């Protein structure tokens, strides 16, 4: 299963786990299974329309999914997915 790095603001939902495993062949599927394991997680990451929120960046390995296929981006078992708050830097 791909592993997912959880950012600090969401760790309350994962029992303070920094890295979790979640099944899925695309980002959308991974987010879905994350939500099964940690209810409420998906709603934090995606808006009502199911799109990744404006202030969240999702990376597959080192690439921002906005440069790939957004939430349809395929993922492999060996991939590392990172969820990173967008509001930083300057």
């Amino acid at each position: 299963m791909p592993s997912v790095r959880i950012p600090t603001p969401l760790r309350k939902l994962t029992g303070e786990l920094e890295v979790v495993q979640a099944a899925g062949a695309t980002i959308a599927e991974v987010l879905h299974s994350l939500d099964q394991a940690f209810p409420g997680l998906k709603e934090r990451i995606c808006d009502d329309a199911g799109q990744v929120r404006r202030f969240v960046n999702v990376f597959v390995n080192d690439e921002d999914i906005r440069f790939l296929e957004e939430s349809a981006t395929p993922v492999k078992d060996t991939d590392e997915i990172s969820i990173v708050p967008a509001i930083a830097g300057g």
Partner: protein
Amino acid sequence: MNPTPFFSNLKCRECGRLYPKQAIHVCDFDFGPLEAAYDYEAIGKVLSRKVIESRPHTMWRYRELLPIDGDPTVGAEVGFTPLIKADRLAKILGIRELWIKNDTVNYPTLSFKDRVVSVALSRARELGFEVVACASTGNLANSVAANAAAAGLKSYVLIPADLEQGKVLGSLVYGTQVIGIHGAYDQVNRLCSEIAGKYGWGFVNVNLRPYYAEGSKSMGFEICEQLGWRIPQHTVVPMASGSLLTKIHKAYKEFIQLGIVADTPFHMHGTQASGCAPISHAIKRGTDIVKPVSKPDTIVKSLAIGTPADGYYAIHSMKQSGGSAEDVTDEEVVEGIRMLAEYAGIFAETAGGVTVAGARKLIESGHIGAGDSAVLCITGHGLKTQEAIVGKCGAPRLIAPNLREFEEKIYAPDAAAASI
């Protein structure tokens, strides 16, 4: 220390939820940015032009509107840089009246970043941090390094490995830990977000960002005061994350709300380098969806942020105020640097070239009226980015140390000599 009652909470800009004034920067619910919230009614009772004018000439003369509890303990001397009326530059750019807000001479590290760092590190101390850090395109690193050194804080500055030599040395000299990352700024930034989450350091532009960002307001307050307590018609601001533009806008609105300046029409304009112009391109496309630039390609390294954190808000500031955005090529940046030097006597870094060249285009296109008045925010010193103009401003003419060569090669006015 006498805690001020003016700065009450952090507040999510998206949903309005309130948070305690800790080292946190995003809302738990929607990842929206947290911003300092103030009690404007209380501030209105104590802050006036007269009170401000009675205080020392630093950015801290507006301290009620800056988010720390006690007195500033880092960078108490920062700010109140000159606002210069630039008549010769105005003429060449084709505008009636032009002012330069000259942060190339900000104290101590010659860029506007000393403003944000002064607030962030003063707050870092109040929160008890011993290690401070930043993700930087260069200027911020210089400022964190210098101000942390003066304050006796341990610092780490993380930068893209390929920055200009002046920016790298300008951090190393303070004895900070300079970490060069093989990658673009956005990768540095992402790494810093992960480090901040894991090790609990005080990252000025990550977990201390709500405090850091407010520091930029002081540039807007100073502009108003130095213009004789009024808001300029047009303000032109270089954009990287878009925070400075957003915060100057906020400063103008706060002064209006407090009755310190009159509510006159004003327009915020943002400028970027074409090789990394996600915000300007979004404005030109007429959208507020910022498409990240994955591989910035420009000599303007200080503004090379491909995923600008405040892009969305900067766009709304420009739209709301009837402003506009423009981007300029690297050649135009060099022209901008030279124009500012030759017509105003100010040597700015590449971001200054972007602002001058961008303003020229905005005037040409009529987005800034030729009969209007504008302030250009010049945010960093040219000695830090010499690579950008080396070989592009000519070279000294070399002669032997004698009068004959001088007259032969440099100054041989036959007639003039006779007339002495």
